[in-house]
């Protein structure tokens, strides 16, 4: 298979869906003339014109809400947040308007739209610019959330998100934009269903549950652990909502030990939810307590060495695995 970057994969997904459906448009800050702050919309203005690729002022609540309104009357907006740290100023539009319209209108209105953009900590951006927002949005029924880690998943999930009839958040991994990986040729229609996890590495001794930023870390940890005779299974959630509980439980039934490697903050994070689900559905399968590897529970500092100390990494995952394996 050809290899392309995570960024190119996203651009392809947008291009293909905009070609397929004239109701799909892209709106956000610097998406058009600047070709995207992170260049995900590179070339889209030239290809589709200013009617379908729209630069906005710095008004996240406003254009997020415009997306919801346009979706209410039948368009399929793709709203880019320059980063999801900036979705916090549009929070009410994303969590109160988008997911509630179907209920409030008694089923008369639905909101087929996509919110996308880089999410999660990057490098030395400090406390306000490093948010991993997945657990905040996961609390809201009516939203769907995916967190692709690889170019293939990025393309397949974004395409599916755009076709979904509900508000979907595609939380892209800022640190993976330049990451290359195998993706089907452009003539292949690549659609990856929301709510389906993927075993990125088969294993039998322990399950490392991860997503987005932590997937490469988990795979690296698994490699190093195999050298020490520990055979770790790496489970990439890919979607946060809906959650692929079947795949999770099947893996736990096989390994009986779980480490959750997550890019977000610990309290009420993704790992806490998965822990509840596992102990609830597979209590007797667990041979030892689940350990989560998360950000340290502090606001993100600028200093690179402090930031490194805050973030999860493969060493932290390895030591967690050893603890759940009682080594």
């Amino acid at each position, binding site marked *: 298979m050809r290899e392309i970057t995570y960024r190119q994969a996203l651009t392809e997904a947008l291009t293909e869906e905009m070609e397929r459906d004239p109701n799909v*448009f892209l709106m956000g800050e610097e998406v058009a003339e600047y070709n995207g702050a992170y260049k995900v919309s590179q070339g889209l203005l030239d290809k589709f014109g200013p*009617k379908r690729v*729209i630069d*906005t*002022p710095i*008004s*996240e*609540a*406003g*254009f*997020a*809400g*415009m*997306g*919801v*309104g*346009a*979706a*209410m*009357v*039948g*368009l399929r*907006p793709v709203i880019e947040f320059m980063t999801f740290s900036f979705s916090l100023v549009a929070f*009410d*539009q994303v969590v*109160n*308007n988008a*997911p509630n*319209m*179907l*209920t*409030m*209108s*008694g*089923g*008369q*209105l*639905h909101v*087929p739209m996509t919110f996308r953009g880089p999410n999660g900590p990057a490098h030395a951006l400090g406390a306000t610019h490093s948010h991993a927002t997945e657990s905040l949005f996961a609390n809201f*029924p*009516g939203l*769907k959330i995916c967190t692709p880690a690889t170019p293939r998943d990025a393309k397949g999930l974004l395409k599916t998100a755009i076709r979904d*009839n*509900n508000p979907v958040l595609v939380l892209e991994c800022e640190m993976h934009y330049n990451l290359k990986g195998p993706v089907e040729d452009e003539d292949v229609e690549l659609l990856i269903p929301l709510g389906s996890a993927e075993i990125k590495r088969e294993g039998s001794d322990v399950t490392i549950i991860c997503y987005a930023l932590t997937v490469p870390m988990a795979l690296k940890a698994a490699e190093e652990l195999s050298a020490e005779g520990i055979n770790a299974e790496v489970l990439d959630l890919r979607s946060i909502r809906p959650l692929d509980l079947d795949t999770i439980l099947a893996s736990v039934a096989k390994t009986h030990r779980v480490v959750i490697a997550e890019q977000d903050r610990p309290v009420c994070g993704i790992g806490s939810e998965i822990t509840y689900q596992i102990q609830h559905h597979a209590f007797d399968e667990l041979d030892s307590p689940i350990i989560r590897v998360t950000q340290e529970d502090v606001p993100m500092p600028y200093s690179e060495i402090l930031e490194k100390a805050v973030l999860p990494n493969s060493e932290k995952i390895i030591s967690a695995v050893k603890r759940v394996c009682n080594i």
Partner: protein
Amino acid sequence: MGKEAKNTDIDILFQMLLIRRFEERASQQYQQQKIGGFCHLYIGQEAVAVGTINVLRPDDYIITAYRDHGHALARGTSADSCMAELFGKASGCSKGLGGSMHFFDVERHMYGGHAIVAGHVPLAAGMAFASKYRDEDRVTVCYLGDGAINQGSFHESLNMAGLFELPVIYIVENNQFAMGTHVKRSIPMDKIVDRAKGYGMKSAVIDGMDVRNLMKDFAPIVEDVRKTKQPWFIEAETYRYRGHSMSDPATYRTREELEKHKEQDPITKLQDDLITEKLLTQEKFDELDKKARQIAVDSVRFAESSEEPPLDELYNYTYYGETVK
């Protein structure tokens, strides 16, 4: 003027009467605890919804805040389905899932009923964006309160409506109060309409109590928007007779102030004008009023006798076309 404008003055009068009588019933039913949650009455402001909506085409989009009974009724949503919605019944205009603050009638292009102050203002911009995107000559009208102009989402939306030249009309129903806060205590300027200057937006103040004046002033604005695709900001001067919601005693204003405003009652005003102009007799008026009262009474009976939403439907409105768990 759009098609609906064929409506005679009598129709206009009747629509206002219907809203008035419907809400009087609703308020009575609320006091009898047949209706729950927050319930905001439109009484006193009827001319704004009725006048503007009768100028619009039926396919123009409208969207408003939580004080939405009048807008739905003026758009033609039946009193039955409105009262049933207040009762939380499956036969309600939002299937009993929305309640007083969330009346929706998409078939009639009424897009709610929104309870977060100014939260719907960007939605209106998006709806107008969509009709422009599809090269329709549709106009979107967004109603909001005088208190809503101080929300960030209002600001961001008006700036973009102007920048993108969206065919949207923002109508501030200035009933002078946001809950207990008089507009003088919420903005530093004298007139709400001046806010438009910060966006270089076309604006106008219209009389919200004299429905025929209102329609006369509003019609050319709608046509301008339809033609130029440029937004307008409108301040409609009106007044609410009742408390902010059913639970508000409205002690922040004097009886005198209230009575003074009631002298410009939009229904009485049109009634008197039409009688003087010999377009209406007192008998005919009483007949119309009787009919309106009857419809309101019947709507209560309809609501009472309607079914509750089925429990198992609870899981059908989280994801479109999907049932959760």
